[in-house]
């Protein structure tokens, strides 16, 4: 594994390299999966539950 200096992180800093580039789109996808599947999806702080599940 290489040591990556801050000035070498240009590609890592790009929008398309984020864990969730589009949080709104990701939230709606996860909401659909959460309401139709038996096990919960994302890792992180729980959002509000809903009557869908």
């Amino acid at each position, binding site marked *: 594994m290489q040591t990556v200096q801050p000035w070498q*992180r240009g590609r890592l800093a*790009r929008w398309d390299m984020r*864990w969730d580039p589009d949080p*709104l789109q990701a939230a709606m996808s996860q909401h659909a999966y959460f309401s139709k599947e038996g096990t919960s999806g994302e890792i992180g702080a729980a959002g509000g539950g809903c009557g869908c599940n």
Partner: protein
Amino acid sequence: MGARASPSLSFLLAASAALTGHAPARADETGSEQYAGYRFNVYSEDVLSAPALGDPRRYKVYSQQFLLNTTIGNRYALSVNATHEVMSGSSPWYVLPGPGGKPIQVLSGATIRDHRNAATVALTHDAGGNDTTTISATYSQERDYHSTALGAERTLPLNAALTLGFGGSFSHDRIEPFDASLYDRIQRAEKNTASAFASLSLVLDRVSAIESGIQLNYQTGYLSDPYKLVSVGDALDPDTRPDRRTEAAWLVRYRRAFGENAALHLDSHLAANSWGQHSLTLEANWYQSLRDGWQLVPGVRYYSQSRARFYAPFFAAGSGPDFSSDYRLGAFGAAAANLNLRKRIDHWEFSAGGERYHATTGYALGGTALADPATVSYTRIFAGLDYHFD
């Protein structure tokens, strides 16, 4: 966060944002940007392919989402996220044994119509060097359902390549079902969910990073569905599940840049719970930048789950104490494909796309001996607009 302090600092913070944790509501997931976003979604379920009684028009949901990410001073970021949904259609009610023991799904009337309003506010303090603390609060309301959640999390750089993320959350939900007296449903019930999670993000080289995280959820209270019944012998009894559930999940995410215009996202997720269910999710997305500010993002997803130990389409007399024929507790698999097209023009960014999701027992890993007649297939389309203030 101090994203506006200087161009070089903005660059470093954006680089850090690419490596940090997972919080969906956290402002620094937007990098150093301040922006406002809007999405409109239409979600539409297919008519059931299995034998069914009742109104065949299944769920349709129209959703609007709003997001504002902004900074407060040099060290704080605020994220406000709101959702409004209108839902209508019929829903799986119970399952009857048909000729030859084949299940017949009974659907509720299509008169179900409800609204959901939800809002999340998250405040992040950036102590510098990717050391962040976020607190968040969420409220979600339907006519028959209320949920309140609070969360806190921290990201902490361990060295130049490794970042630790950890946190916890608590939510309290209350349900007051429609027509409770008419259908002999529970009048009012509550449930609580406590979660704890941790992750490690690692820069592998100049073009790739990986994150691994675990989550534990513990739920107590009323975990049944008050709108569902179960065929037990010749009777119809209320859906009855254990009053607690523990779940563990393990997530791995990998990001790799290819040249200056493409990136691959690979995600995997394993989960297991105390009801006997375990699941696997695999997801791949390709981000391709094109000329003149266009971007195309195709993706595929596979999901498989086993059944809960108290799931069956219908039960013999004397079964119990727990039983459910909710299709979400049965064994099934699902395949999905999605496509998103984006176009950036100065401060504005337009996006549009869709997803096709198909679930069936035939896709379940290892197969299943029990039918699950109400598995869902749906189509979702969406369009949106973002405005970037920077």
